[in-house]
């Protein structure tokens, strides 16, 4: 955004050149994956949600059973299993960017989530639908929740906590704005 302003000024005066960023290519084949590929076959949180909805409908807010169910749901969410066979492969995945670290203009670490607004309005996605991305070169970002494509080696990282299963991480990722 900020380079755009600089370039805009140059263009006003009548210059206008934009250097194209050299794209680093990898010899290994990159597999384009989708979010459902990150869920092991047979894992179905919907069952739990349906049960939760049905049971909770006739419970009061502070009913211990409601809290119990909520707890069960939370555990299922945090402990969502990962697909181990994808570990250590080169993948390309697109989703929405949620910044974690960076300087004023570029993001060096962010969470990639499958849908827009994945932090406040709805229950958070299960842990196997969140990918932690550390960029190779910081990505000069656009707006919040920008749609991006991430290419890099997918790893699974064990959290110290026993409840949670592993989380997906892409290191040294190449990040581009998503082109549909």
């Amino acid at each position, binding site marked *: 955004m900020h380079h755009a302003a600089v370039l805009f000024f140059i263009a*006003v*005066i009548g210059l206008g050149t934009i250097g194209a960023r050299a794209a680093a290519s990898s010899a290994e084949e990159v597999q384009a994956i989708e979010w459902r590929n990150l869920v092991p076959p047979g894992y179905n949180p919907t069952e739990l949600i349906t049960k939760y909805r049905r049971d909770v409908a006739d419970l009061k807010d502070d009913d211990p059973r409601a809290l119990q169910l909520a707890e069960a749901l939370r555990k299922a969410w945090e402990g969502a299993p990962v697909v181990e066979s994808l570990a250590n492969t080169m993948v390309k995945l697109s989703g929405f960017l949620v910044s974690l670290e960076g300087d004023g203009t570029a993001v060096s670490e962010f969470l990639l989530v499958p849908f827009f607004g994945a932090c406040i309005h709805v229950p958070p996605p299960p842990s196997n639908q969140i990918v932690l991305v550390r960029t190779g070169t910081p990505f000069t970002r656009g707006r919040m929740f920008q749609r991006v494509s991430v290419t890099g080696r997918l790893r699974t990282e064990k959290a110290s906590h026993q409840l949670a299963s592993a*989380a997906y991480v892409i290191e040294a990722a190449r990040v581009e704005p998503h082109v549909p």
Partner: protein
Amino acid sequence: MPILALALRSVLNRRLTATLMVLSISLSVMLLLGVERLRTQARSAFANTISGTDLVVGARTGATALLLHAVFRIGYATNNVSWASYQDIARHPRVRWTIPLSLGDSYRGFAVLGTTPDYFRHYRYARDRGLQFAAGTVFDDVYDAVLGADVARELGHDRGDAIVVAHGAVDADSAQHDDKPFRVVGILRRTGTPVDRTVHVSLAGLEAIHLDWQSGMRVPDAAVSADAARQHDLTPTSITAFLVGLDSRTAVFHVQRFVTEYRKEPLVAILPGVVLHELWDAIGLAEQALLGVSALVALVGLGGMVTALLTGLGERRREMAVLRSVGARPRHILALIVGEATALAATGLGLGVALLYVGLFLARSFIQSWLGLAIEIGLPSLSEWLLLGAVLLASMVAGLWPAIRAYRYSLSDGMTVHV
């Protein structure tokens, strides 16, 4: 070379207009670069202040307000978090560490922060840099204090000095906690963040100085001496906010959800990176507008130069004729005018950059104490060089116009001028 000397003398002969041209260009360049510099510096200073913290938790309020108050010490808190809620959330299985923050008092204009030794262990800034001590160590006793680098430097404090904290954010003689002075036990290295302008004390210390302030003012009869205060239970009842680190960053939404749905107290948990990003999105448009306006000012400066050159041409027809008579060709005249415009603009650029650096140097401490932003005075960045190059190129292009006119004049006039 003689041509250059002649050109220089010609400019010197018109030194008043030339000086004005250079001045107007330098002022516009200073404005342009200054806006660009402050914009990027403000962003990086903000972004560098917090790193490695997954969530900031406080009483339910606006996300930006919470971040600004808890991390940047800007604004004020609308409410507190109870100690019990803090402990509940700190016990969440995914939480690896927490840093409680208690704000509201001040010491001679600097914020006083009540916290725990975990602050010095876990707080990170500027891409994972931890706090380091320039002298001394972490507070241990109830009345120990650790000073940020700027506090120690500006007030000339060293280890062993006694400081008296004031009640509230503004120092007032009537609201001093002067019966319970703190002793400086440590001084932190410079970080370039609001930490430098903070006095750190233990939560127990803050609690102790407020023991006899329960009714909003000090009740002389209920006064508790510094030593007597040690006998009281100094566990705080509430804190302003706290920072949270998790065992895995991907758990951040779940813990955020846990805090938002916490039943006993309305709390909010924010992702600092997200809130900063939203802040940039919100003020981005204003920044662009500011940059656009200063670009226009630079154009106006160049326009002034072209006007001055054009009006000057009439008076200089005799000069051109003399140059022609000594063998200058019309294209030499063209080059002369373009060269003059470029040289004037380049001088303006140089002066503008110099003015900017002088201005930054003078305004630095003011900006730091006013906004808490550390301004680094470094070499121009890539985008600043681009802006400078653009202005220089624009001045060459702008110089072409009077140059072409002069070229035409010298063709038609030859060596005889009919003014």
